[in-house]
């Protein structure tokens, strides 16, 4: 999901960069206030840990393998605002050490994975924790939230690609979210399993952290607002079925046509998107809804199965 350079246009880069910077500043602020100095090195080490854990290849099928992304896992381990920092640093290192993910596109990648994925995922984790208590609730919440975080990040990534005019919304959204709904299952399993492993050896690590990051209300609201703003800007022109939204896209397209004059690459997504938006859009939404419900059930069963194994073993 690391967008390389060359796929996003200038306006998308600028917008997502600004959003990412804002959210990052907020995260640093919150983390700095909540962190006792003793825990400052822990954030750097957790970032190194997430990076190292991503190198573990979990066998999937037919010789393919998947690996951890780690947003929700990090958030349950060091708290959401520190996790934003952790994932941001992982992305920076991946871009500057391995050229994995672009440098201009760093802001977009940070926004998708460190902000939307991590904070969004943690928000869902927090919500599920309200209704499900105990270790089982924690595992279930983490499993479900991990899946959601991957799908959310993929959706945001798709929206940016479409907003840049690189690929048509009706193509990129179903493909990106579809693939990541599958990848997310792996993420969900790994997150729950790792969390369980930590909970069994050092349970106090998880509770201690959970107590240590009381975010202020306005900070939570600001995070939510930034994410909503980003998604609204990137996705609203496509998701909205009102003519205004469509006209807006069309205007943008026409504007670009004019700006670059003749002999251009035919701008992506002219009529096709506009004609096709209702059916594929609806289909994607429906599939997403069904997938989410199924995944919630899966997370519930997974948490139950994992803890039943434990009572057998002991």
């Amino acid at each position: 999901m690391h967008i390389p350079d060359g796929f996003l246009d200038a306006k998308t880069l600028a917008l997502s960069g600004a959003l990412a910077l804002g959210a990052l500043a907020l995260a640093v602020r919150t983390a700095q206030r909540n962190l006792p100095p003793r825990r400052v090195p822990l954030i750097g080490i957790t970032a190194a840990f997430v990076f190292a854990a991503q190198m573990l290849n979990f066998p999937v099928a037919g010789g393919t393998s998947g690996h951890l992304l780690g947003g929700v896992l990090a958030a349950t381990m060091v708290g959401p605002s520190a996790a934003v920092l952790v994932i941001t640093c992982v992305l920076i290192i991946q871009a500057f050490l391995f050229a994995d993910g672009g440098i201009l596109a760093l802001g977009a990648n940070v926004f998708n994975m460190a902000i939307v994925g991590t904070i969004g995922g943690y928000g869902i984790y927090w919500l599920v924790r309200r209704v499900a208590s105990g270790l089982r609730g924690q595992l279930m919440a983490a499993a479900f939230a991990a899946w959601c975080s991957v799908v959310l990040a993929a959706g945001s990534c798709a929206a940016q690609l479409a907003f840049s005019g690189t690929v048509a919304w009706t193509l990129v959204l179903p493909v990106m979210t579809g693939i990541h709904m599958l990848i997310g299952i792996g993420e969900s399993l790994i997150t729950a399993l790792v969390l369980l492993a930590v909970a069994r050896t050092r349970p106090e690590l998880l509770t201690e952290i959970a107590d240590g990051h009381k975010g202020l209300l306005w900070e939570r609201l600001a995070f939510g607002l930034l994410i909503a703003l980003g998604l609204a800007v990137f996705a609203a022109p496509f998701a909205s079925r009102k003519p205004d939204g469509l006209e807006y896209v069309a205007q943008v397209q026409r504007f670009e046509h004019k700006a670059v004059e003749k002999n251009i690459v035919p701008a992506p997504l002219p009529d096709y998107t506009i004609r096709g938006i209702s059916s594929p859009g609806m289909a994607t939404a429906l599939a997403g809804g069904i997938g989410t419900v199924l995944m919630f059930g899966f997370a519930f069963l997974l948490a139950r199965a994992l803890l039943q194994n434990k009572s057998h073993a002991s």
Partner: protein
Amino acid sequence: MHHDFIDRYSRLDSVVHRRAAGLKLAVALALLLAIILWPRLDKSGLIAFAAIAVVLLGLAALSRIPPGFLATRLLMLEPFALGIAFLSLFQPGGGQTFLLLLLRSTLCLFTVLLLTNTMPFADILRVLKRCRSPSLLLTTLALMYRYLFVLIDELERMQRARAARTFRGGRWQTWRALALLAGELFVRSTERAERIYAAMCARGWK
């Protein structure tokens, strides 16, 4: 095995490596912007892209990074780009968009590869510091860069020790074992973080 080879080429000594970090970053950003802002793939576009490619190849030759390494890295990073570009084939006028995206992303990838392999990470930290990044971010990045090598080595030792005593096991067993490994690595990492904190305090960290 030690994973110190990960960023081995960023410390070569060449004309390119010796340039100031800020300059390299600025040139790379300028090239990237030029690549993504060039709107069309007509004759002048092709000439512009070809010119950028020549510049990049020239820099690559000057940098003394083995061409084979650059080529392999480029191929390894191409699949995602290809996937997205491939999608664009399914829309009207897709053929040309596909070509444009492929050219753009390959050139961008090459630029980023060159930059990352001619600039030690410590230099990037210095640039970030000069840009007045928050100290928490800098500390986190510096610690992360330092310890990712240590943790990867540790993970590999643990994985080897596990493999040495694993005789069978299905996919589910492998998953559980890998997760246990990651969990153990995290627990060890938190303990290491405590020791690092002690070492930082011992030298006057506030």
